[in-house]
């Protein structure tokens, strides 16, 4: 039971082995990265109290290569005792790096923005956002053990991100302060509808965009519900990915299960009286 997991064995392979442009009418381009650019991790000191560290500057974070982002995320600690009722599956570095890389390089939704990571777990998506230059990142999770691991991961990477211990469903925020929500929500297989609860809340809170992963089998339902019930102005699939869920729970019969998931980008309708575009 409880076989140990790490970021590595939770790898997500893309269909056909490579990220490629799909032929959907609403597919948004490829995920190629720019070559020849160097990323240097900042050397800020994490010291507390009266001493302070030099200002953290990230002049070339935006230019980070996809592979560099992926390998940095591969060093993160993952769930030590995943909780099945919360559908805690680690967001692997492969899928996380692609989600954030596209959000930043294709849409400019991360750098200099306020980003919230809903159901942050061990913080992979939030930390990736911080690495790509988000001005403020807030990770929210209901599970204190996850938040503890996420805090350690943030400290290890010398990134400052905020955490809130809260049930996404019960979260009450002033709308539109957050620009972008990134999330790998529960797929709703254990608790029906939990994926849509996350999505509805994310679209309420975000002013710019919501990035999320949902099972491909629910594609039509997601699109319809997002637009009809969840305040989405648009709902586009950016690519289809294979989420290799390792055998981490007792009830898993097979050694590894592949779930095909869609990477979505939702754009919310602006709320009335919102001050910013």
């Amino acid at each position, binding site marked *: 039971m409880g076989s140990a997991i790490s970021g590595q064995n939770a790898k997500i392979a893309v269909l056909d082995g490579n990220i490629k442009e799909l032929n959907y009418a609403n597919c948004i381009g490829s995920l190629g990265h720019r070559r020849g650019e160097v990323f240097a991790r900042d050397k800020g000191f994490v010291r507390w109290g009266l001493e302070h560290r030099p200002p953290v500057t990230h002049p070339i974070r935006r230019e980070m290569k996809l592979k560099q982002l992926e390998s940095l995320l591969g060093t993160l600690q993952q769930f030590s005792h995943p909780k099945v009722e919360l559908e805690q599956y680690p967001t692997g570095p492969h899928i996380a790096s692609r989600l954030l890389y596209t959000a930043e390089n294709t849409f400019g939704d991360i750098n*200099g923005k306020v980003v919230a990571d809903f159901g942050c777990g061990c913080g992979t998506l939030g930390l990736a956002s911080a690495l790509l230059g988000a001005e403020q990142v807030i990770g929210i999770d209901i599970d204190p053990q996850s938040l503890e691991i996420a*805090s350690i991961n943030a400290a290890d990477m010398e990134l400052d991100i*905020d955490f*809130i*211990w809260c049930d996404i469903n*019960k979260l009450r*925020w*002033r709308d539109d*302060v957050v620009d972008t929500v990134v999330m790998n929500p529960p797929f709703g297989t254990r608790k029906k509808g939990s994926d849509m609860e996350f999505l509805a809340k994310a679209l309420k809170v975000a002013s710019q965009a919501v990035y999320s992963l949902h099972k491909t089998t629910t594609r039509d339902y997601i699109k319809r519900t997002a637009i009809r019930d969840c305040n989405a102005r648009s709902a586009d699939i950016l690519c289809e990915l294979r989420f290799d869920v390792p055998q981490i729970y007792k009830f898993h019969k097979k050694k590894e299960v592949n779930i095909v998931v869609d990477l979505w980008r939702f754009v919310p309708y602006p709320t009335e009286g919102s*001050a910013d575009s």
Partner: protein
Amino acid sequence: MRLLTHNMLSCNIKGVANGFPLRLEAEKWVEKEVELNADFLRHIFPKIEWKALAGAARAVGYCELPEEADAAMLDSEDFLRRFHHALLEIHVEEGALFCPETGRRFSITKGIPNMLLREDEV
């Protein structure tokens, strides 16, 4: 928890009418310098509830923010610097968020506010 996060959070107990702002009761906080990004400050300014920010800043002993602010002040470098410091450089580590409406106190431990509700509050 930075004061920017405080500026978003509302009391989430069922039936609460307003729930914002939560009064910050800070016991321990740290300051960490971050590079000032004027574009970001201009972007976020219209979304900030100024009185709540100024109040939270006072709770951590920072009294350099004016009582009221308007967008014209964003031209002042001095104002930007203070706004930046209050919003992004102060991290509350220990303390609580108090809702005057319900009397509920949400604790902040190791920088993380606990907004989980009890069964009778949902």
